[in-house]
């Protein structure tokens, strides 16, 4: 089987209410990824994104003048799929289904960015549910639980109750990421914050405070995936995909299921525990071999949950792990979200975390982890998700 590699990365500017269509944003990001690699966009032969993505493959074929599209795939969920989409692209390349696959996500966000009645057409999906509930919302909305923040807060508070995790632990991760963002020219939030600022931030849904939340902004991100051999011949070189897994776990919008599975803390191997073993087993490495991690976090509290489940620390130890400074660049042993993450750089459903993993392995990150050779990235642990391992080319 062939080995896949990231050959190009691209992204738009990230900002609120940019006033551009998602197709326009996607085309810019895809063009940037192709330029980075030095290939013509019309030679792309595959597209992978989320099922909620509103930019269709057909639109991209016609807009970009694609010669021959051979592969189209989408992954369930939003931020959960951020790493899975790279895995799906790698799989197509590994099996020879396609040669140059674009992984992308383009989105408008914030109330003002809404451009249609579909929950996925910009704005806040949960606020478009209407007053008659025929789907999963009937189990949450009548009780005033509607926004992802509400659901994540319930997930995080249980972790606190079982393990003694403190709300400040989530805040410490938010503070670390805002420090990372303060050094990143592409980040929306350039002012660092302290833990005192976290205490002073207004509560959203306790234990979540405003600065724990992902930003609401517009933007797009794309990556070009090809074979490691072809990537070596392109101008940016190869960042090989060492492994990828998907994880079909329940989602935070269906808490009755979520608490029986992913959030059954301490009761059985739940969430990503088994998927993590599969990921590292296939790649032939362990979590201790990872130099830098990108953990997609709709809210900062999902970072410790993911780190525990993927085996970077023991179950229940995510809070103290963050408190030890392990996730903070430059001194931490496992810097997490070195670009500033979803509360610092931007929220592009976590796909902006993938170029940062590539930059770290190219040695071009603003907050460069010295000598980084292996990067881990995972989707939001509160969704059906997945993870990838990337390495330097040897």
């Amino acid at each position: 089987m062939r080995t896949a590699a990231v050959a190009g990365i691209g992204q738009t500017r990230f900002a609120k209410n940019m006033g551009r269509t998602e197709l326009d944003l996607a085309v810019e990001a895809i063009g940037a990824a192709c330029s980075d690699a030095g290939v013509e966009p019309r030679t792309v032969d595959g597209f992978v994104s989320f099922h909620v993505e509103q930019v269709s493959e057909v639109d991209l074929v016609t807009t970009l003048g694609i010669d021959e599209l051979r592969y189209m795939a989408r992954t369930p969920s939003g931020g959960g799929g951020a790493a899975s989409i790279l895995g799906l692209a790698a799989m197509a390349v590994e099996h020879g289904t396609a040669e140059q696959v674009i992984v992308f996500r383009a989105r408008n966000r914030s109330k003002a960015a809404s451009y249609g009645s579909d929950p996925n057409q910009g704005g806040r999906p949960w606020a478009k549910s209407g007053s008659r509930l025929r789907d999963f919302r009937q189990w949450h909305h009548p009780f005033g639980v509607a926004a992802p923040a509400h659901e994540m807060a319930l997930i995080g508070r249980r972790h606190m109750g079982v393990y003694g995790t403190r709300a400040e632990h989530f805040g410490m991760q938010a503070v670390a990421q805002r420090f990372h963002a303060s050094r990143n020219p592409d980040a929306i939030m350039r002012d660092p914050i302290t833990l005192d600022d976290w205490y002073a931030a207004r509560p959203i849904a306790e234990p979540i405070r405003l600065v724990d939340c992902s930003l609401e902004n517009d933007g797009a991100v794309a990556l070009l995936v090809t074979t490691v051999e072809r990537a070596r011949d392109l101008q940016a070189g190869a960042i090989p995909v060492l492994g990828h897994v998907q994880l079909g776990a329940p989602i935070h919008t269906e808490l009755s299921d979520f608490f029986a599975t992913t959030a059954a803390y301490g009761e059985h191997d739940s969430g990503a525990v088994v998927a993590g073993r599969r990921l590292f087993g296939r790649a032939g490495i362990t979590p201790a071999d990872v130099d830098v991690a990108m953990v997609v976090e709709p809210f900062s509290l999902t970072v410790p949950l993911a780190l525990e489940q993927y085996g970077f620390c023991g179950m229940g130890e995510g809070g103290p792990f963050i408190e030890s400074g392990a996730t903070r660049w430059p001194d931490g042993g496992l810097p997490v979200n070195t670009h500033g993450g979803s509360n610092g750089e931007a929220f592009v459903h976590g796909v902006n975390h993938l170029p940062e993993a590539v930059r770290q392995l190219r040695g071009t990150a603003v907050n460069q982890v010295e000598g980084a050779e292996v990067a881990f990235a995972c989707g939001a642990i509160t969704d059906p998700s997945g993870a990838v391992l990337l390495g330097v080319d040897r």
Partner: protein
Amino acid sequence: MTFSVPSPDAIPRPDPSGADAEFWSALRDGELRFERCAACGTLRHPPRPVCAHCGSRATEWVTSAGSGEVWSFTVIHAPTLPAFIDQVPYGAVVVRLDEGVFVVSNLLDCPVDELTVGDRVELVPTRVDDELTLPLFRRA
């Protein structure tokens, strides 16, 4: 501040069909009912067409004793749905019924600063109007 049920004209309202409708219908009669596999006895919620444990499609409904535990909680400040805006901050809970099923709900007569993981709670079927009764809880 304690939780109060939104007005009938504001509350987001289930408009269910099939097995979901049976769940809400039972509440109108004051009962919290869950699907139970008629073959192996495993409870499930929300309703589903097959038992995830044994694969049987034979289903019966069982009435919960209504006793459980606060498994988790949050105090919601913002943003929220229009129906709840005038009572922020308000509490929301996940209750684990003693039968092993989880539900999202609210606690009556419990100030938000008294919400506690592990508190014992009892069902209070709370009528909104002729169409809708909510499965809310009160500390035991």
